[in-house]
């Protein structure tokens, strides 16, 4: 059974005349240990899809099952619990909490009510393992983007989730730091990873690259889009 299973997911944003169907029927299965990259143009609905997959938003129709929990059937509190235990998020703009040190940020999910045991310990070993020990005592604004994103990844992993969802994780990073982050995401072992990006470098590390076009996922890239990028 795949870690993530989505069937016939649709989502319309806006209302009345401004309504726009972003997703018209997305099906996606991601297995444990698989890294899937979703590419698409800006505004194609990539981030929306990711949010739906992580239970941050609800689809209009369709079903999403994460680690055996059907998100689309869960109420808010259960959904939060699923997120806490089974999903790790990595955001383009890191979203670290300003008032907390790096280490504290990493430990936030472990300290939330309902978090699985061993979070603290896992957090510390993650910090050590990711080479963040030296900067862990500092506050986010004192850190570089790469450092912040590494902390964010550690935070995403602290509750040992089955699914990691990364939304443009390298979007705010230079090439070198981007590479470090991507290799980190690549090395998450048995976890299922979905990376939403428009950068080919990110796609390069994926086991599978999907393109979101006209509300559906496709295996092949669009006729011109990627080529244009490649020549750029």
């Amino acid at each position, binding site marked *: 059974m795949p870690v993530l299973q989505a069937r016939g997911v649709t989502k319309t944003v806006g209302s009345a005349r401004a309504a726009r169907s972003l997703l018209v029927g997305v099906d996606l299965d991601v297995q444990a240990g698989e890294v899937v990259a979703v590419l698409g143009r800006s505004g194609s609905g990539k981030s*929306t899809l990711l949010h739906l997959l992580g239970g*941050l938003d609800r689809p209009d129709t369709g079903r999403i099952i994460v680690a055996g929990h059907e998100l689309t059937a869960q109420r808010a*509190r259960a959904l939060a619990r*699923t997120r*806490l235990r089974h*999903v790790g998020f990595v955001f383009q703009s890191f979203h670290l*909490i300003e008032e907390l040190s790096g280490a504290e940020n990493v*430990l*936030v999910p472990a300290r939330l009510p309902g978090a699985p045991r061993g979070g603290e310990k896992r957090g510390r070993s993650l910090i050590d393992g990711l080479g963040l020990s030296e900067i862990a005592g500092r506050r986010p604004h004192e850190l570089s983007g790469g450092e912040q994103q590494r902390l964010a990844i550690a935070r995403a992993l602290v509750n040992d989730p089955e699914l990691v969802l990364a939304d443009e994780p390298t979007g705010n990073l230079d090439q070198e730091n981007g590479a470090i982050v991507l290799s980190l995401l690549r090395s998450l072992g048995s976890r299922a990873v979905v990376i939403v990006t428009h950068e080919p470098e990110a796609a390069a590390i994926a086991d599978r690259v999907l393109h979101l076009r006209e509300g559906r996922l496709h295996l092949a890239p669009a006729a011109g889009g990627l080529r244009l990028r490649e020549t750029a």
Partner: protein
Amino acid sequence: MLTAALVVSDSLGRGFDRGVRAADLPDIIVRFDPAPRGRVARRVAALPDVAGFSLRQEATGVFIESGPHSSGSASVEIVGPGRRGYAIVGGRDLTGRPGQVLIERGLATSWGIPLGGTVELADLGAQRVVGFTQSPDDVSYPLAVPRLYLSRTALQARFGTQLDPRVNVAQIWLRDPRNLDEVLVQARATSYGLHGLRFVTRSGVRVLIDQAAGIVIDLLVALSVIALVSAVVMLAASARAEVQRRLRAIGVRRAVGAPRGHLAAAQGLEALLAAVPAATLGVVAGALATYSPTSRLLTLLNEPPPGTGLVGPLLAVWLAAIAIPVLAAAWPAWRAAGRPAVELLAGAELPRRRARASTWGPRAGLGLLGARLAGARRVRLVTTATALGMSCAFILLMLALASALSALETDPRALGKRYQLTAGLPSSEVAHIRQIPGVQAVAPRYEVRAVDSFSLHETIDVIAYPGDHTVFEAPALLSGTRISSPRQAEVGAGLADALGLVPGSTLAIELPSGTELRLRVSGIVGSFDHDGRVAYVPAAALLAADPSASEVLAIRVRPGADVAAVSAALGPVAAPASGAIARGVPLVDTLRSILRAVAIVDGLVCLYALLQTCALTVQERRRTIAVLQALGAAGPAIARLLAGAVLALVVPAAVLGVLLERLVLGPILAKLAAGYAALSLTAGAPEVGAVLGGLALASAAAVAWVAAQSTRGAVVKGLAA
């Protein structure tokens, strides 16, 4: 709040002056035993600085009846030609035709007498009410006796020579009231032969009126002033917080080259758009909440309501309520915009300080994180906590005020009075009354309303006992000693303040008998009676100077004995000893409704501050909360976080509030209102408990509401914020 404060302070604080203007109240009112009109007129006309005068005859204890109501103690004034000294607030003045009567508005309201209605007067029969009057020379019915006015011309037409031609009241208007003292000295020097002479001046009238509600009015006015200041602080704080929230946006606009002034103006404009409807709503609500109870109180005090006179000040408040947030928004924006754009973009609200060593420990919950989040905005936390603390202090003050008020009203001991009953009996009955079971002590008590002989506009309530007065009245001794010789006096601190008396000074009392009684001040005492303008003197000295001093028997009941039983044994001559403001239940009721209105407004302000703070915290932490939600935090967790933030605010605010009330506001207010006596306005345990409980409840409500609000929407929206 600002409006409520304004309505109360403007209406009450300036009510007397308004009343004086409306009624053309004379500068001096002289009362004396009936004397020939011509003789009095000649003497008054000879005084310097007299712009005009009118002479009246005042009959007291007249029986009147209207519909189901009646009173045997009405005061009927027979007015002649000349200035009136009352305002016609309904109908018209007397024309001199028989059968017309003017009645005081308070009486009309209380008895429901319409214009054109009738009042039956003893000896005169039914008289038609042609107008309502208001004159602030005394409080109104039911606080005082009912007052009516008849035309002398009309009575003359009816009774001819049978009408008593003498007068007993002279009202004098001065050209330049600064010469009041000179005029009074001359009036006194030429008053020989007039008996029972009593001068009352405008300021004396003010004291008399203030006695009825003085402490309360002073308290309310003082309270309103403090409220006004804190309202300003609160307005400024919230506007400033708004700018802090926008710092990043300001940074962006700065970065793209927006001029500094433009940014400040934009911020100000935004505040303006928000402030106009808010200020309008607030002004209208505040005015509506307090105007009606205040007006009721003013009617009882024979003072006109401010009416359109309030429009100007309200407009000013409205403008201030707009200008203050606008400025408070524009100024920090102006300052912020002066900082490097990079700093602003980094989200800095203040120049960064070094991260504190203390960390969010392993076992610390979300509450502490919330507190840390709140604590991160230190300036805001301090201002909001201050504002909230002030609000708490107010509510505490209001509660303390209410309990002080009811104590003053009902408990003679609050006034230093130790007797519980008085009896209108001659002193020869002392031995007889002492036999009544339960009576611990009884003695004649003399009370004379006099003036200071050197400052004739200062009234003095002279109280005398033949023996040790402390058996019956023991106002706290503030300095000096108790009376120990027949030529000594204890004076109230109010009087000491007014006349600059210290122990050892000479107190000169000009008695109605025309005699000057001089006594040495032995001590200063705290007393509420007559605004502290009292003097305790030995009865022998008083009676030697004025044998006609009014006398009652003061009766102290044995501890544990039943006051009611003693009262019953005495029969109808007994009356309970009254408090400083015990001129009637209606007054206290009205005052309570004012207090209630002010307290409600204040409570709402408190709740608003809390909600505002929570909402502000959530709003600017929306992303943080969304992140936490994304990381798996559910509603209760968010609520805990908010609770932490609120506690970080409420706890210091509560501490501040209690301390502020106990150490600053209470004492200041007590001093402002009743500097002449030790009025305790510090809140006790029940009040503090009530306020803390209320605060906790309000916090819980605020947290619940804001948490519900924040978790309702999709998390993604928060992340995008």
